[in-house]
């Protein structure tokens, strides 16, 4: 198994917003989803997941309701607010720009050496 990467600073919030954007979801499912989708590359420290969720809720980017799960138990489901969706779009765009720029620079350096 390849070594798991630490998440760059500030990306956890973006990832959470993206996962929640797909539909109301509870905390454990968010953790699972992040791990599966990233093919186990991204290991979300569960200890920092919940503080992040609460912070996003406090800032009004997420809203939460208590609902029954498919197994019939009560869980806290998070969903995106309108403010959260706007935040997700702007952060995703800027992430995109950043990664593209980083990619360009990396390609340039290998090409230039030959």
């Amino acid at each position: 198994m390849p070594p798991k990467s630490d998440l760059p600073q500030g990306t956890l919030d973006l990832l959470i917003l993206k996962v929640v954007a797909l539909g109301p979801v509870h905390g454990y499912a968010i953790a699972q989803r992040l791990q599966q989708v990233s093919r186990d590359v991204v290991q979300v420290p569960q200890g920092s997941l919940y503080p992040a969720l609460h912070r996003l809720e406090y800032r009004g980017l997420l809203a939460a309701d208590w609902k029954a799960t498919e197994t019939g138990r009560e869980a806290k489901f998070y969903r995106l607010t309108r403010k959260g969706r706007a935040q997700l779009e702007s952060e995703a765009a800027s992430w995109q720009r950043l990664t593209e720029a980083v990619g360009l620079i990396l390609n340039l350096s290998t090409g230039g050496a030959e």
Partner: protein
Amino acid sequence: MSWWRRLRSSQLDDQLDRELRFHLNHHAADLMARGHSAEEARRLARIALGGAAQVQEACRDARGTRWLEDLWQDVRYALRTLRQRPGFTTVALVTLALGIGATTVMFTVINGVLLRPLPYPQADRLLQVQEQTRGTVSFLWGDRWAFAYPNYLDCRRDVQALSMAAWRWDLATVSQPGQAEYSTGVETSPNLFSVLGVAPASGRFFTPADDQPSAPPVMVLGYHFWQHHFGANPAVLGTSVVFEGKPYTVAGIAPPGFRLNGDEVDLFIPLGQNPSPSLQRRDRHPAIQVFARLRPGVTPLAAQADLDVVARRLAAQYPDSNRGRGFIAEPLGPDVGDVRATLWLLLGAVSLVLLIACVNVASLLLARAASRDRELAMRVALGAGRGRLARQCLTEAAVLAVSGGLLGILLAAAGLRQFVALWPGSLPRAEEVSLDARVLLFAFGASLGSGLLFGLAPALRAPARHVEQALRAGGRSLVGSSRRLHSSFVVAEIALSVVLLVAAGMLGRTMLRLSALDPGLNIHNVLTARMALSPATLASPAKIRVAWQEVLDAARRVPGVESIATVDTVPMREGNNPIGYGTSPDLPPDDRQPHALASSVSPDYLKVMGIRLLHGRFFDAHDRLGSEPVVVIDDVLAARACGGADCVGKRLWIAASSSPFSVDTRSPEPVRIVGVVAHVRYWGLAGDDQAKVRAQFYYPIAQVVDPLMRRWSELMSIAVRTNIHPLTVVAPLQRAVHGDANDQVLYEIHSMDQLAAASLARQRFLLSLFGVFAALALVLACVGIYGVLAYLTSQRVPEIGVRMALGASSGAVLWMVLRQSLGMIVFGAAAGAAAALAAARILERLVEGMQPATPSTFAFTIAVLLMAALVAAFVPARRASRIDPLKALRQE
């Protein structure tokens, strides 16, 4: 999410708990599905999530209301711990309540007397306008002058920026109706009330028509005078009141509490009806004060510019009287004299007491914090942040400070009136002194400030640096920094106490010296009172002279009266008459003329006052109108005028403008010196040495010329030497001199003993308060020293046990503890002595007759402090010396 829901933190915590439990269960179920045993699955799930407590903490932190929840929690915790230690809490609260209470009282007085605006609407738009001379500055009066009436009239007409009102005091007798009463009258322009923005309580104020010399005389009564002289009878409107022998019709009543320059006024009459010729002259300044209100939208600068224009025009038009003369407008503020300095001095002293109280509470708190080291270390180990602990310490201090502050405010509210009543003489604007929003803000600020002050040391200490050590030490070892901090508290307390003790010592020495001074007269068994003759006599100078002779004759027959004299200015009382003089006919110009205090007296004055005659003679019946003007001078004037040689028979020249021996002379008036008497401390026991004008001379009232007789008579007092207690002759004296029409009254009645005591009242008042403050400081400092040493010693019990087990004698242990305290005391006393030197400078500048601090003052006060401090230190030291080594070692 509403604030209310956020505040319900227990519910939120509950939900968080459920959320995390759901996560753990779900994770465990997944792990079991992958083949882990139930127990193993739960363990792995918990590890993956991390410490539940930390996650919960982090989640709470993520919520924005964290600080509020913490604050509430801290406050509850603080209240609980304070309740658990009632002894500590009581001492701290009482100390703080006293400190903050005393400071609040002082500030309340300062607020009422100095800071509050005058009690008129929009008082910040009010100005006082005075005449100002450029170039020539009078030695006595500076460059400010009261208005000449024609100048006022011109300004009022031509200065568009201001509405101006003029008024002057007119003190005289109200003889009808009722008992004759000497009253405070004011002659005023009709618009004074509208300029100040007050409306009559009933009836009307004056109109411009009332201000005409030919208009029927009308009067407005002061509210208080109306109440006590007329029994608040509303039917008084339209009736006649006789003032200065002239009947006036009452037109209105002024509103309650209305004051001019801080004084209540008994009655008002129109200034324009005053027939005195001096009101028609531009070169006379009959004490007319001018108040003005800025018209809407006008700045003070614009008003001043308008005044300057008028002043220049008048200077060109009337060069004789108005050249170099301008008008200056300044904000109208309260006139409180030397009370300002006294108040700030006392606030300074009381702040020192509060500071000591704070240091005391700080050392108590610190001792407690140190003994809670273990608890704090435990909480750090359990995940409490250090900032969090520091904040909790501060919250505890704030809770203590605010409770102490509340108690202090209650104390201040209860003690305020008593304090104002204690004030020597009368406190100006005393009626304005009350608790208001600004005072409460101050008290609250002072409480929180003290809380911060005494909470900071324990709070900064709170992050126990070596958690493991603290836990292991079991809270019994003492970190060096804590001991240093404690010592510095003791040092600070002692230093502050030394400042107050030295100040009290200086004041005490000053009082001793001033009380022992020779006043220059025999102050015992002398009664003085101002007296107003019957208004009927005032028209004729001859009648006035006869009336005074009759008063003297009648009074001499009163049982208990030995001798009696008339005098215009009484020593140590308000009122004086400085006159320029020279030793040759060419007097130096006004601003460089020497001045002497002049008193017009009848021949028995020397006998009544018990003033020593040094050379020559005093006055007798031969000194009368028409004979050569004579004066008797005091030894101070003798030394200045004749340089120690015999003065008797020599001549002095008196400035023409103030000569009582003639009117309208242009050249200085020569007078013959017939005697030299001892100097009298005219300005009071405390103030005489620094007074601007000390030289004195006396002249016979019999030689005052006729045109001045009425004015002199209005200012006259009688002085009576008695062979019984002087105040017991007041009633019979009053009956003896009341005159045929029963309208002659005595007022401002004092014995010379009272006047002499009053001249020291400020010093005595300061001494008693500084004495109380110093005693309080001493007690607080001793409590502080005792507390700190008791604490430090109790921390050293095991060490002392070891020492004693190894053979140290109890005497050696006693000495060891005492030596430790001695170091702090000596260091504190040295620091305090340096600060006291600075404080002594301030006292010397602000208090009349203050004696400089001498080494003996320092030695004495520091010895007192040393004794007290050593007694306080001795108790814990003795306890330490009696430690049973076995028990002490078992404690370890």
